[in-house]
């Protein structure tokens, strides 16, 4: 019961923090998650401070709320408690749940200049556009990229400038990168793909590369037992169990970056949102590449969009739009991308002088953006939280050897079908 108590307490504190303010300024509360390394809360606080200086009539309280799941939980709980935030950064894929909960308003209804919505990369708008309406604005968006340790490549006698381009190539290269001590214990793995937190995302990347969609547009069907999905999970499991180039058991999302920086793995699949943290922490040369292909290149898009809540008053919604416009303006999008590694959400951001000079000095900064042409909308269906759990459980069951990949996915498909039945 302690967790329940803590949530109530947190809600109470938030409530207290919002209430006693002069009525003249518009108050906005924004929940946001952090899923990558680096001092992201500081960057957000700094952006919010500058926005408030330029807009003295708007007061924004930015609340760090944990990872994506925690933030969604907090926003939903606050809403059911009658105190929803006015805006939030949440997974772009939470859109069905938020619509089903009647929590958010379409952005079109709030902006006069609809041309603004066309400025963003279409790949990032895909998840947020349902039934001809735009429900969210891209903010911290990403694709999955392959990070590789050039020094380790050189040491293994590989071309340090060439990342693997296909699955088979990745397996072969990874085999050469595995390093063992005299007693036969692995001191460096070939490649690591994280299996906690966002395992569904990584599975989707593999499925896309294998030429398989994971869901339909209506968001009420998933394709987990499709042969190509099963083959994707098989490949993933084989990396550890057959080829011995990846550790067995689950690989933690949060500590994988440290594994890479400590040289425990020569390659990793991770969000581009971690790029700046890796750049700041790496004591070796590293490269960033698009994910390797099986039938095709590809990665799901990922990350968080800005949502405006229905519970906000018209003035608050107006202020929120102003804030969203400011946060996603080309200069800020470029700055945000440089400071974190997330993909800047508009092409215009890449034409700013700050971004151009940064990309020139650090070409890895645009890899995730270039991958957008191969990108597919992230897995997003009704009851998303539940479906993610089923898929994550299946992936974990398979990589830990508790279940065979096809059995694990069949179980997840069955559970998902039962839940999604209500939305057909």
């Amino acid at each position, binding site marked *: 019961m302690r967790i329940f108590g803590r949530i109530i307490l947190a809600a109470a504190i938030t409530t207290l923090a919002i209430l006693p303010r002069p009525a003249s300024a518009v108050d906005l509360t924004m929940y946001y998650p952090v899923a990558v390394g680096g001092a992201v809360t500081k960057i957000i606080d700094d952006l919010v401070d500058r926005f408030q200086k330029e807009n003295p009539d708007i007061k924004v309280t930015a609340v760090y709320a944990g990872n994506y799941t925690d933030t969604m939980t907090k926003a939903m709980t606050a809403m059911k408690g009658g105190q929803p935030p006015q805006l939030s950064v949440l997974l772009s894929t939470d859109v069905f749940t938020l619509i089903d909960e009647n929590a958010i308003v379409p952005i079109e209804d709030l902006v006069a200049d609809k041309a603004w919505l066309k400025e963003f990369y279409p790949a990032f708008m895909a998840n947020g556009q349902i039934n001809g309406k735009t429900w969210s604005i891209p903010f911290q968006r990403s694709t999955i990229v392959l990070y590789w340790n050039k020094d380790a490549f050189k040491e293994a006698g590989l071309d340090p400038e060439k990342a693997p381009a296909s699955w088979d190539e990745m397996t072969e290269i990874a085999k050469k990168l595995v390093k063992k001590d005299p007693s036969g*214990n692995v001191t460096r793995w070939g490649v690591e793909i994280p299996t906690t937190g966002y395992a569904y995302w990584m599975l989707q990347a593999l499925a896309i590369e294998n030429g398989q969609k994971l869901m339909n547009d209506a968001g009420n069907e998933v394709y987990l037992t499709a042969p190509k999905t099963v083959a994707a999970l098989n490949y993933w499991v084989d990396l550890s169990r057959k080829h011995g180039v990846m550790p067995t058991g689950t690989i933690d999302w949060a500590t994988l970056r440290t594994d890479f920086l400590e040289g425990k793995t020569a390659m990793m699949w991770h969000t581009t949102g971690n790029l700046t943290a890796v750049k700041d922490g790496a004591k070796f040369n590293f490269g960033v590449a698009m994910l390797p292909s099986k039938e095709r290149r590809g990665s799901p898009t990922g990350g968080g969009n800005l949502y405006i809540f229905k519970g906000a008053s018209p003035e608050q919604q107006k202020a929120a739009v102003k804030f969203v416009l400011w946060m996603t303006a080309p200069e800020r999008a470029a700055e945000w991308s440089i400071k974190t590694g997330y993909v800047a959400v508009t092409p215009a951001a890449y034409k700013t002088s700050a971004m151009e000079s940064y990309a020139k000095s650090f070409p890895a900064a645009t890899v995730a953006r270039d991958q957008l042409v191969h990108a597919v909308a992230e897995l997003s269906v009704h009851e998303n939280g539940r479906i993610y759990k089923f898929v994550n459980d299946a992936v974990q069951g398979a990589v830990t050897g508790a279940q065979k990949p096809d059995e694990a996915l069949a179980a997840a498909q069955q559970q998902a079908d039962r839940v999604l039945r209500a939305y057909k």
Partner: protein
Amino acid sequence: MPDQVGKFLAAPMPRSHTWLNSVNAWLLLLPAALLLVAFTHYPVIATIYHSFFIANRSGNAVFVGLDNYRAMLEDSIFWKVLFNNFWFAIGTVPTSIALALLMAVWVNRNIRGRALLRLAYFTPTVLPMIAVANIWLFFYTPDYGLLDQLRGIFGLPGWNWLGDPRTVMGCLIVMVIWKEAGFFMIFYLAALQQLSPDLEEAAAVEGAGRWYTFRRITFPLLMPTTLFVAINAVINSFKLVDHLVIMTKGGPSNASSLLLYYIYEVAFTFQDSAYAATLTVVLLIILSTLALMKFGYLDRRVHYQ
């Protein structure tokens, strides 16, 4: 006592006085009763009530009878977490009680640095669970965690402690024992100090060995404490979930998930309050059965001084 007072004040105790007395008693009970009703009894009844409904997203509740319970029986995750909870209790309760008793007997003797030793044993209890979980997370980190560094000295390979369904539960059990044993030790220590030293002296005079004395005299006299501690330990094994949030989120693949953590996921991550209520009813039944066992059955069998 009131009877005696009544006798002393002689027979002409007016009727209104007894009446006033009972009003007085009820008034004294009122604050506690109000709190209990508002925060314990009402939620229990509301939970049971809600478990018979399905609330759809728009907030309308539909009566579905036992459908939620039927769905629960078919829910493989429910069975998994219930089973996990069972093993978690089996793993933590007896060991932490035995350890607590051992530590209490040890620090009850007259040895140098006794206060320091007691403090050391009690320290894990003082730490918040979140802090403990973070410390142990470092111990269990594969390759560069404390445990794997120790294994490395002996040339053993790294082990993915929390990432392997075969070891994750054991790891959490060890941590919880470490955290809980010190707390139970305090109860045993208090009980040991209540025991009359005469008994031990008498046993020594009769030529009983130390083990025999402990087995036939000390341990039986500690029975009420053991019972109290055992019940609390079992209840704790259903209430402790904080560490899961930090360490495993119930993974891999629910291998470390416990009933209360699953309830949290269903209630807040999935926003399915009806099913969460159904699961909570199960938890309620388990905990009240334990409480009934203590008050109704075990209390009568335990030898009190």
